[in-house]
């Protein structure tokens, strides 16, 4: 489902599956040194891996990851993959300065750096000022094609989304827009694959969860997200 046709600036909670969301992307942080701080590490020269525990932080440019433990995989000189575990692990990244800081959290993260993929599993939540908040059991963020993919369509793999209210858009929104948005949300909720989870999600919208970050929210521009 393409989210771009949904009017931004309306506080709605949606439940759907198998969506692909596009964001603007691609900074050059990958060329900068990558720093890893940890309590302890086992550094295996033969397999070219470093397995760390006791709290682990990864930094590279705007990328900042906090985890309890993880493994850095290299091929030759390049870091190709970082596997992370946490309660939750938190991944902060400025995909594009215009889109602001993306914060993703999950119990397990597989940052496939060489492929620009971030695979998130277990209590996943992704928040971005432009896109809103997503939650589910599994999501994949493709940092190269600028896509967020999630939800396999069954059971716990559903993805939940909240579009944060935007004060400016909210004040300018006409009653007709609100009605249209309500009907869109209702039609999604009434899709056959949507089960009781939908009602549960609507009753406890994601925005009610503790905030993921303290930086100010940017004005939303949902229409540009599909560019």
């Amino acid at each position, binding site marked *: 489902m393409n989210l771009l046709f949904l009017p931004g600036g309306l506080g709605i909670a949606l439940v759907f599956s198998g969506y692909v969301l596009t964001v603007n*992307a*691609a*900074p*050059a*942080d*990958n*060329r*900068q*040194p*990558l*720093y*890893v*701080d*940890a*309590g*302890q*590490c*086992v*550094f*295996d*020269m*033969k397999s*070219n891996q*470093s397995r*760390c525990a*006791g709290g682990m932080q990864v930094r*590279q440019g705007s990328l900042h990851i906090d985890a309890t433990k993880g493994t*850095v995989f*290299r091929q*030759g*000189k*390049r*870091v190709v993959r970082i596997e992370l575990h946490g309660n939750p692990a938190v991944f902060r990244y400025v995909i594009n300065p215009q889109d602001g800081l993306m914060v993703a959290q999950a119990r397990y993260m597989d940052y496939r*750096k*060489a492929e*620009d993929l971030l695979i998130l599993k277990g209590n996943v939540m992704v928040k971005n000022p432009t896109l809103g908040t997503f939650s589910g059991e599994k999501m994949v963020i493709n940092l*190269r*094609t*600028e896509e967020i993919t999630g939800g396999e369509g069954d059971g716990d793999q559903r993805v939940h989304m909240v579009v944060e209210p935007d004060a400016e858009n909210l004040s300018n929104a006409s009653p007709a827009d609100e009605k249209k948005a309500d009907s869109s949300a209702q039609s999604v909720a009434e899709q056959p694959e949507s089960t009781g989870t939908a009602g549960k999600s609507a009753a406890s919208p994601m925005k009610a969860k503790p905030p993921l970050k303290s930086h100010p929210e940017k004005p939303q521009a949902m229409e540009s997200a599909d560019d």
Partner: protein
Amino acid sequence: MDGRPAWQRLLAVAMVAALSYLLWVINRPQPAETRPEAFTKGYAATRVTGTLSNDTGEYHIRFQARELIQYDHKEDVDILAPRVTMLEQGQPSWRFSAHKGVFDRQEQNIFFQQQVETRRVTNNPGELLYFSSPDLWVDASTRQAYTKSVVHINAQAMEATARGAEFDLGNNRHRLLSEVHMQYQDSGRWPSP
């Protein structure tokens, strides 16, 4: 004058001078590296080179030192400016250098002290490794090394520091015990969309 011959007077003066010199030598301040008087030197040698191997010949150690001192009552051998190469069949060698060290002949352990530098010598650039620390304990028989001190590590496109480390030299697998900071010179280019 007491009427003694001049040669006797000169002899007496010479004896007094010699005795004074001897007392000065005995009582003068000792250099820092000199052992306490209770330690009796068994032997000492300078500009030493040698090779040690275990019973089965699986590995051996080649060493150089500016000075080697062995005390009668100790098994340990003090080494100044040691340069040690640890060799094992079919394995890359490890080279150690330090300002001084102590070698336990029985256990074949070496305790390196002051500006210890360790280098893995191999043609495979991916397995090159260098690390430095203020001290390092090396067990030649098990090819393990250990330090509690801050260690600096350089590998291919990677630097690390940690407080305390255990080095499995045989498997080139190393445990950094605390306060680990690693920096990868990630030369990868951000792929074009």
